[in-house]
């Protein structure tokens, strides 16, 4: 009898966790642009330079 109570609580808490993560995802802007990410993965990474630390460019003319 009380087993069903525990099950309901468990399922609800899992669902609420998902709801919260969904709200976080929307708030952080992940749903704002659903088109560009699809384009972004198309170019192959250039093999020689893809350091995460924004590699130092040689020169600039601005």
């Amino acid at each position, binding site marked *: *009898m009380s087993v069903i109570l525990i099950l309901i609580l468990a399922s609800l808490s899992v669902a609420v966790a998902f*709801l919260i993560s969904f709200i976080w995802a929307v708030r952080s*802007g992940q749903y*704002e*642009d659903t088109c*560009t990410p699809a384009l*972004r993965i198309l*170019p192959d990474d*250039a093999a020689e330079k893809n350091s995460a630390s924004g590699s130092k460019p040689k020169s*600039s003319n601005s």
Partner: protein
Amino acid sequence: MVTVCFHCGEPCAGDAFAQDGKPFCCLGCQTVFHLLQENGLGQFYELNAAPGTRIRATTVAARYAFLDDPVVREKLLDYADDQRARVTLRLPAIHCVACVWLLENLFKLHPGIGRSVVNFTRREATITFAPDRIKLGELAALLASIGYEPELTCAETEAPRPSLVRKKQWLQIGLAAFAFGNIMLMSVPVYLGLDRFNGPWFRVLAGWLSLAMALPVVTYSASDFWRSAWWSLRQRRLTLDVPIALGLAAIYGQSFFEVLAHRGPGYCDSLTGLILFLLCGRVFQQKTHERLIFDRDYKGFFPLAVIRKTPAGEESVPISRLQPGDRLVLRHGELLPADAKLVGGDAWLDYSFVTGEAEPVRCAPGSHLYAGGRQIGGRIEVETVRPVVQSRLAALWDNEAFRKRRDDDLDSLTNRYSRRFTKLVIGLALAAAVFWLFHDAAKALPVFTAVLIVACPCALALAAPLTHGTAQRVLARLNLFLKNARVIERLAQVDTIVLDKTGTLTTADASGVAFISAEGGVRKADLSVEERQWIGSLARHSTHPNSIRIAKSLAVAPRPVSGFQEISGGGIAGEVAGHEIRLGSMAWLEKCGVSGRNRSNPEGSPSAATTLPVGSHTGIAIDGVWRGGFQLENALRPEVEKLVARLGSRFELALLSGDNEREAARFRALFGERATLRFNRSPADKLEFIRELQHGGRRVMMVGDGLNDAGALRQADVGVAVVESLGAFSPASDVILDALQLPRLAEVLAFSRQAARVVRLGFVISALYNLAGLSIAAAGLLAPMVCAVLMPLSSATVLAFACGMTAWSGRRIFALSKPLGASTSPARLREPAVKWIEGA
């Protein structure tokens, strides 16, 4: 095989700018290529063929210096502190995968730039940078120098961001979906009678939990329904949201009461499902609408070409290819496509499209001219200072000043219809509820809600705009442009076609122009080189088909012209090298007091008309003396005979011409006995002729060159302007048709009739659906939630039907006729990436 620029894909004049075996069209493109190679961004060119945009002028950094002004900076920046600043810039040039890649690797070009993120659909880039290493103005200049000029408008910085709205929508749907799923989970045992094993306490617990989960859905997810219902009540207007809000409140109230009274778990599962599906339907409709707008703003090619001045000479270019810094030439009656600076010429600009003020404004050299102004008078030269914004020009064309009254009727008709519809539906719902109250009281409320929801007319509202939007796209592929989608409906109703002769049915080639001297019999004096120069210089100021032909046939080095005037239906006049030159119809020249006497022949014939051979219809007068005339042999456009024969079998035809009757017999043979042929018509006569036809209950389509019969085009139910590759903008017209596609007019009409049929069928489908849905719902056999599922489904059916049928019939009708010669096709200019996305 033409070599095209490796960077931007435009044809190259020579290989003066070749580098590493790759051709470039200009120094700008070459510089960008060099810059990207140097910084390890060469991959840009592997992602797409010729991905760049043409770089015409080297960017002057000072042009963006104003961005560093604290006030402007403040407005533009999203975020700023001492170390970092973030700005979101609109870069209309973004068009493909390569653009996204390049802009997101911007940090390789300058050490001061950090992360940059592109939003492709909105054509925006959000860039983080270090303000102490690169100023905002420098950043904008850097972007411009690689071909991504930021679009900076005041409206951009002040308008609220649409993303906030969208975020809220996602949250509302997510919340509703969460509640729906979990309430359903608890309702299933109750439905199946499993709660008997657990005792009555389970039913109570499930009821209270459902109520608790439904509460945020009712208050937050459904908040738009409450707000819009409240708003329409305050405005004392009845919209469908009022009864929907009423229904929602009633269901929640009833559930609350049942749980409180321990009678059952309530209807919270249906309620949350209902709200979820209503929201989904709304998003679906919104997305469809957004897509239509996107197509119009970014893919719609605005049918306007201008003369661009290049070192090599003058060329006609579509405005979508204009860049800031281009030198343009505007002639009488032509429209300025972008904000520009006046360089030379006597500028009188008519801003009536922009401001509604018809009085032309005199502009001094160097002054700023606004897009949408129309030049009155002679040629002027301008330098564009801003990029062309097509959507703004399209809005000008669709300006209220040029709307026909019938459009408004249509709008108000829809409004009236929807009000009546709402009343009808509410009445029906109430009647059904009252009926059930006496037979089965428990069913009254669900039936009331079900009827309201199933009757939602969104499928009805979608049918017409979707079909018209698709049809518009099919036609644009044929270089035929519609002012707005409603024109299709009117095209389908046409039963009479009035054609203009000069420049519409006949070509404007340089061939067939012959000079006939006024002293024909006496002395065969041809035009001297100087005279040819004067006349040619004058003629090139005008966009009248005859002037264009004369200017082309004389082909002289232009001399400056002052005091240029163009009298519609008369002719043109101006002063060249101290001589007053007039070109125009005989009647107009005589009215201007031109005499037959001249210096060399003081005793000459008193009236020029007697000495001129019959048929020469563009007269020349120099210093008030007849000089002779041009005989313009009119060659018909190719396939016009076939077109006239095809149109004649279905429509009433009429030909109006400003010319004399010299060619009457020829056109009589072409048009047949029944058609009306009128010659020597002034623009006012043409307008009057169309008005008479309309009084006789006819739906008239006028086909003309767009400039000299603007009044008639506007009066007609549908005005079609036929333009050569350089189309002078004619806001009075509803349709702009590339002259090369004229023979396809019959197919276009057939296609629009087909489109109108699709709309009507769409109406029938959604009406049938409504009828069936309503009767089942009123009979109490349909739960409100099922209705909410059916509703978006019906919209999807209508959408698929409207788009599919229209595209299919377009392909069928236009495939029958072979494609006509390639012109300056805008299809070539469309962004490849957009196509790619459509395919995905």
